[in-house]
């Protein structure tokens, strides 16, 4: 029941996202009717042609009317037609999204394996070489733009060592460099959060009590410290999956990786509203779902937390 209530609470959130997705696109300067008309003429289009295209695309109607039409169609599964390619938006996104998902998923795996591991080691061996190394890595990683790292990785591993392909897709090797570059979006912050969270938990009285009871140190860390230290880490890690999906565009362009990110960038440049709106709404929906899943994971990590707020214990 609590879960259903939670789901219903997401509806207004989703509607707000849809309003933002629709509104933000229309706020940017540029006239999609003119861009579409340009494709129909031998040069910059005439004002008459632009007006005709605007009517055909329904862009001459008031924005609230356009929004209602758009949302109604989305709910019925009609995501519209791309102004730029002339194909159904859903078809365009479905064709490209799996590639982006593969890339983001691998980057996510790299982040959630490497970051907590290094973070835990850095916390447990505070002040040691590994702690210094982890902190330096987090600092450098957070400071570097991911596209710069991407080019450096290509120069080292593709141009000089010739171990991995420069660009494209087709094999697991094609994913390594882009996913590593992309993981830089979330890996440094996750590592630092894991370290600081675990250091905080390690100061708690209940851990000293557990140790005083004679529990083995490894058991104390695994059973008691990590479960609590990981609660904020899970939040950030979960949200990072959304960030990785949204942030893949630049990496996809650098590696000529045919995902949805590059398609979105091209669509923004062409004011292809149906594509921009649909993808922003889609990403927003993913964030909402991830949020919900994070809440579920909370209850698994800490039984004191409940989806039903009436029964939640204050901790």
């Amino acid at each position: 029941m609590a879960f259903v209530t939670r789901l219903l609470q997401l509806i207004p959130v989703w509607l707000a996202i849809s309003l933002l997705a629709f509104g933000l696109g229309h706020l940017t300067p540029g006239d999609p009717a003119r861009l579409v008309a340009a494709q129909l003429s031998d040069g910059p289009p005439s004002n008459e042609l632009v007006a005709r295209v605007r009517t055909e695309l329904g862009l001459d109607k008031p924005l609230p009317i356009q929004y209602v039409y758009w949302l109604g169609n989305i709910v019925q599964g009609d995501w519209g037609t791309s102004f730029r390619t002339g194909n159904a938006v859903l078809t365009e996104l479905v064709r490209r999204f799996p590639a982006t998902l593969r890339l983001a998923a691998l980057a996510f795996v790299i982040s959630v394996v490497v970051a907590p591991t290094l973070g835990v080691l850095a916390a447990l061996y505070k002040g040691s070489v590994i702690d210094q190394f982890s902190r330096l890595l987090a600092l450098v990683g957070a400071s570097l733009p991911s596209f710069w790292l991407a080019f450096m990785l290509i120069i080292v591993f593709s141009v000089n060592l010739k171990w991995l392909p420069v660009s494209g897709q087709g094999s697991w090797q094609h994913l390594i460099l882009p996913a590593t570059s992309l993981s830089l979006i979330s890996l440094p912050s996750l590592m630092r959060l894991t370290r600081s969270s675990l250091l905080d938990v390690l100061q708690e009285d209940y851990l000293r009590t557990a140790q005083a009871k004679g529990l083995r140190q490894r058991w104390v860390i695994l059973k008691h410290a990590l479960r609590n230290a990981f609660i904020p880490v899970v939040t950030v890690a979960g949200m990072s999956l959304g960030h990785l999906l949204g942030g893949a565009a630049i990496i996809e362009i650098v590696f000529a990786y045919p995902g949805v990110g590059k398609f979105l960038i091209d669509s923004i440049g062409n004011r292809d509203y149906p594509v921009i709106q649909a993808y922003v709404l889609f990403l927003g929906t993913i964030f909402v779902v991830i949020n919900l899943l994070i809440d579920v994971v909370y209850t698994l990590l800490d039984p004191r937390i409940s989806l039903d707020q009436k029964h939640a214990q204050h901790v």
Partner: protein
Amino acid sequence: MNTSLRTLLIAACLLFTSSFASELTMAVPNDGYRTDERANVGMYPLNANIYDTLVYVSPDYSVEPMLATSWEFIEPNTYRFFLREDVVFHDGSAFTAEDVKYSIDRVVAARPSGGLGADSVVIVDDYTLDITPESPNRRLLQQLTHPSWSILASGADPVTNPIGTGPFKYVEYAPEEYITVTRNDAYWGEAAQLEGITFRFIPDPNTRILALQAGEVDVAYDLPREQTEDVTGSNGLSVTTSQVGAYAALYVNVSGNEGYELGSDPAVRAAVARAIDKSLIVDDVWLGNATVNSSMIPERILGEFSSVVQGQAYDPEAAEQILGDAGWVDSNGDGTRDKNGRELNLTMVVGFPNPDIHRPMPEIVQALLADIGINMTIDITPDTASYDARLEEGSGDLWAEVGNQNDANPCFLPNGLFYSQSPWGAYPLRFAPGEDFDVFIEQCLAATTTTEVAEAAANAMKLIIDDENVVIPIAGIFRIYGHRDDISGFEAHPSTVNQRWNLVSQ
């Protein structure tokens, strides 16, 4: 013959064959193909040579026969084409006038263009046809050189059934990844040297260079001008450039909105034109991978009339003199000239076709104008849509553009951009210099010979560049290819969309 000798011979044969039957992988920028009813896969913007056109524009911009062997103009407005009779499509069917009608009707149905309508193409016999535009169009020949007017077999489609007559046959197209073609052994013209070509779409220019250096591709197209040394400095790699086929220029807004009307002052335009050191930009910044340009139109198109347009020489003293004589002086000593209480502040809008292609020209122009007391602000628009919106508003004084000469019509650009009756949206509204210019364009549109067209175009460009300073040409731009040293037979076409690959070998 014993077994080992036979094996040796087979191996030698295979080695010999493979050295000639090679395949090329080429990195090109964005995949701009459409796959809807206006599908143009393999045609435009990347011409994969799957299809031929009726006529072809050569690297020196002359119109040459392709699928049409000859043509004649029939008054008042008809072109009659005589077709090759020895051509077969990739599926073995014979090429006839029916296929030309099908192909042109297909384009017209999806995208009314070039003044052609549903009834414009009339078949005379199997190898003769008439094309009559709906309105007078003496530039039809030049227009038909564009690969958008490629000829397909009747019933064919670029996506589902791509059958052409070109030197390469369609194999596979993966959107935003690659398009692959293989040699057409039955090609009517000079057969392709390569077994096949895979064009890989790699949008980032740095990645294209790295892919070339890593050996992942054999050729990389559209290298940044300032990065060619990265290629020539690598073992086994070279750079090939085309003749000038594009231009970088500044247009001065002569009809700006409030706050942006300084371009209407002839003295300001004349001073700006003389204050820009084009050699500095071309030689020192773009490393000689462009050429100083006196006009927007390639010299070879204007032919004997190219010297009519001189362009303004770099002369900062003269620029200062012009401004001083017009009353623009630095009265308050802040380094910027002023007149009647108004500072000489200009805004350069940079963004067509993208801001990156201009870099770092705007900053250099900014510094050069500061030397003569003009304060210039640079406004970068992230994409064409934002740029168009600014142009519509008229909020800018100098407009940086890079444009292409993709057909052989010298009047195409001046007519569209600066003719007061041009339908090209905001361009004539901001940049049309007036009636004197219009007269030349009207002469150009009515001209019946190539010489007349070139003369009218040259006069129009002289007026707008030398006399009125509405256009300030910066540079003529090459197409730049990086490739392996062992690639031969490659002549870079100044218009990329007309590039042919059949003579390339490795």
